[in-house]
């Protein structure tokens, strides 16, 4: 296992390094004038000179890269032009919302996708199977920004006066602002301390915050606001997971050891649960890891539709205002997260299935 882990980490590190190089080189390879791209087309020669000096653009590219690399390793992603604050600060302010959204979408996708796939394989070629595959086909073809809009129209306008009504935008209803849990508990935190920063960061996880501080009305409201974005974001991963579970389980159900289990007299549900599913789910685990990419990309679209102040909307706004440091820093952060999560998924895969380690 250790040899496998080292080998897998050994392939992830160059990719991670390559990601940094790519994000660093992207604006430089493409050319154009970074100064006017950042400061606007009407920037004067003097301000461009100052801009180049301030950002080290007058130095050789290799030198620039070393500086960039060093800054990143120290957690310095530059400064946002629009907010005039460190990119890292904006990132950590926005991260909790996106994390909550992505995690709940992933959980929903797994919780529905796997049972759907199992049912489709169990009753192969039945109406259940046909319906699952129809859902999967439509699901992977869905522009989720449009699905999100349709959902909010359906639940906020068409069903707006029924008990099924759900809020279409925002994280909480207007006028409802949950207190940070540490304030509820009467803790005073200093602005600059690391512990204070950590508590503030944790308190931005809305569900976690309202739950542990027993702000029930806010918790309910927060959960209601999370439903539609979660459903929209989970659709594609759910379709992919259902499809993968189905084909993988069908594959395993055709194998000899499954027939042996059935021949011993085990009933179909038991054969699936005890024998087939364990093997069938292994490729599904890999697919789930890869779905994180769809979730992170989809978060940009989903948050925009539902006016949620997460990483995605920050990126969207940054595109609009041409806030380059945010685009660069966020891209790097999202890509590194993706690489690291897929590494972890592969490691767990190798842990669960010894055959993988030997390949």
């Amino acid at each position, binding site marked *: 296992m250790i040899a496998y882990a080292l080998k897998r980490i050994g*392939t992830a590190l*160059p*990719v*991670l390094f*390559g*990601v940094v*190089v*790519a*994000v660093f080189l*992207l*604006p430089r390879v*493409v050319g*154009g004038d970074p100064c006017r791209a950042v400061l606007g087309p009407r920037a004067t020669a003097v301000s461009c000179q100052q801009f180049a000096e301030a950002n080290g653009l007058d130095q050789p590219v290799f030198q620039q890269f070393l500086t960039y690399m060093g800054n990143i390793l120290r957690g310095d992603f530059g400064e946002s032009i629009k907010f005039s604050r460190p990119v890292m600060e904006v990132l950590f302010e926005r991260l909790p919302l996106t994390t909550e959204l992505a995690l709940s979408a992933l959980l929903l996708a797994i919780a529905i996708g796997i049972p759907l796939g199992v049912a489709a394989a169990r009753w192969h070629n039945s109406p259940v199977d046909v319906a699952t595959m129809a859902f999967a*086909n*439509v699901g*992977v*073809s*869905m*522009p989720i*920004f*449009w*699905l999100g*809009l*349709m959902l*909010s*129209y359906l639940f*906020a*306008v068409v069903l707006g006066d029924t008990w099924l009504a759900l809020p*279409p935008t925002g994280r909480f209803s207007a006028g409802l602002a949950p207190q940070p849990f540490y304030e509820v508990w009467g803790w005073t935190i200093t602005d600059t301390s690391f512990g204070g920063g950590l508590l503030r960061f944790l308190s931005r996880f809305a569900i976690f915050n309202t739950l542990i501080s027993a702000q029930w009305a806010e918790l309910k409201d927060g959960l209601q606001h999370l439903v539609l974005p979660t459903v929209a974001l989970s659709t594609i991963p759910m379709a992919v997971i259902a499809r993968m579970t189905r*084909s993988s389980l*069908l*594959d395993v159900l055709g194998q000899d050891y499954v027939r042996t289990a059935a021949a011993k007299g085990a009933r179909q549900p038991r054969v699936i649960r005890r024998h087939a599913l364990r093997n069938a789910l292994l490729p599904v685990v890999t697919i789930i890891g890869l779905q*994180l*990419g*769809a979730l*992170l*990309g*989809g978060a*940009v*679209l989903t948050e*925009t*539709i539902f006016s949620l102040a997460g990483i995605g909307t920050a*990126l*969207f706004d940054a*595109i*609009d205002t041409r806030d380059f440091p945010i*685009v*660069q820093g966020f*891209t790097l952060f*999202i*890509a590194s997260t*993706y*690489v690291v999560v897929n590494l972890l998924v592969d490691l767990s895969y190798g842990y669960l299935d010894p055959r993988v380690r030997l390949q």
Partner: protein
Amino acid sequence: MSGFGTGGDQVDGQVTSVRAEETSDELMEDATSVWRLAMQRFFRRKLGVLGLVIVSTLAIIALTAPIIAPYDPIQQLDRVEGSDVARRDAPSSEHLLGLDSNARDQLSRIIYGARLSLPLGVSIVLVAIMIGASIGAIAGYFGGWLDTILMRMMDVILGFPALVLAIAIAYVLGNAIQNVLIAVAVVTLPQYARVMRASVLSIKEVDFVAASEALGASPWRMLRTRILPNALTPLIVLGTLGIAGAILEAAALSFLGLGAQPPTPEWGSMLAQEYTLIRTYPHLVIYPGLAIMVTVLGFNLLGDGLRDALDPSLNE
């Protein structure tokens, strides 16, 4: 089967002798019947045929847009003299899908949108296949450090969530439809490179390839006559599915304001312009999105059907 070894050998022997008598004409017929068989398999599957119908219909719509579109997609109809229409008019018999915020006929815009999205999706995939397959072929054929470097570069691209990398590239290149083409083509390169490399690697080991190499066939000839025909099936299947993904990503980029710019009739950008009005004017949001979904669905179904038909080994 091993228990019936002798019998099996006899059958094999007969088959071999029959094979030996076949003329090259019959072999040619064999090759075409592979495609005929694939066609038969394809048309037996309803979903694949449905995909083909959707895609062909869209292609016809795109080709005949100037004829079938009832109005000019750019013209603001409330400025036409003597017109009695207003901005955001709901669907009516005059304007089947209503008018948008600039009083343009939405049906015409959606029809013209096909003229943009379809060729865009196809060109993205063609560019990605041309570059990706070349990279894969070079990596697989020459091997060694070149292989390592090229495929590591592909890994780096795959290290990004596709849409996020496409956003970054399109952002740096600037808002324009051709930059969407580049951005989406780049993020989808690796899959074609991998398929091509795998085909090259598997075919390099086969005796008849070693034989033609020994006979002095040039790398280009090897690629054309030996490797490409073998890689064609997976490239066709991946490419068709790739068009679906490319159209979806291109629409997402346009929705984010990175692609087609107004007043170009592009589905994603139409949504971006009107989506805040969904509560009051839902028709402005429903139809452009529906157009995207149906198009993507069509290519996905067609791709799945082709995969089932061309590569029976993948059948469940």
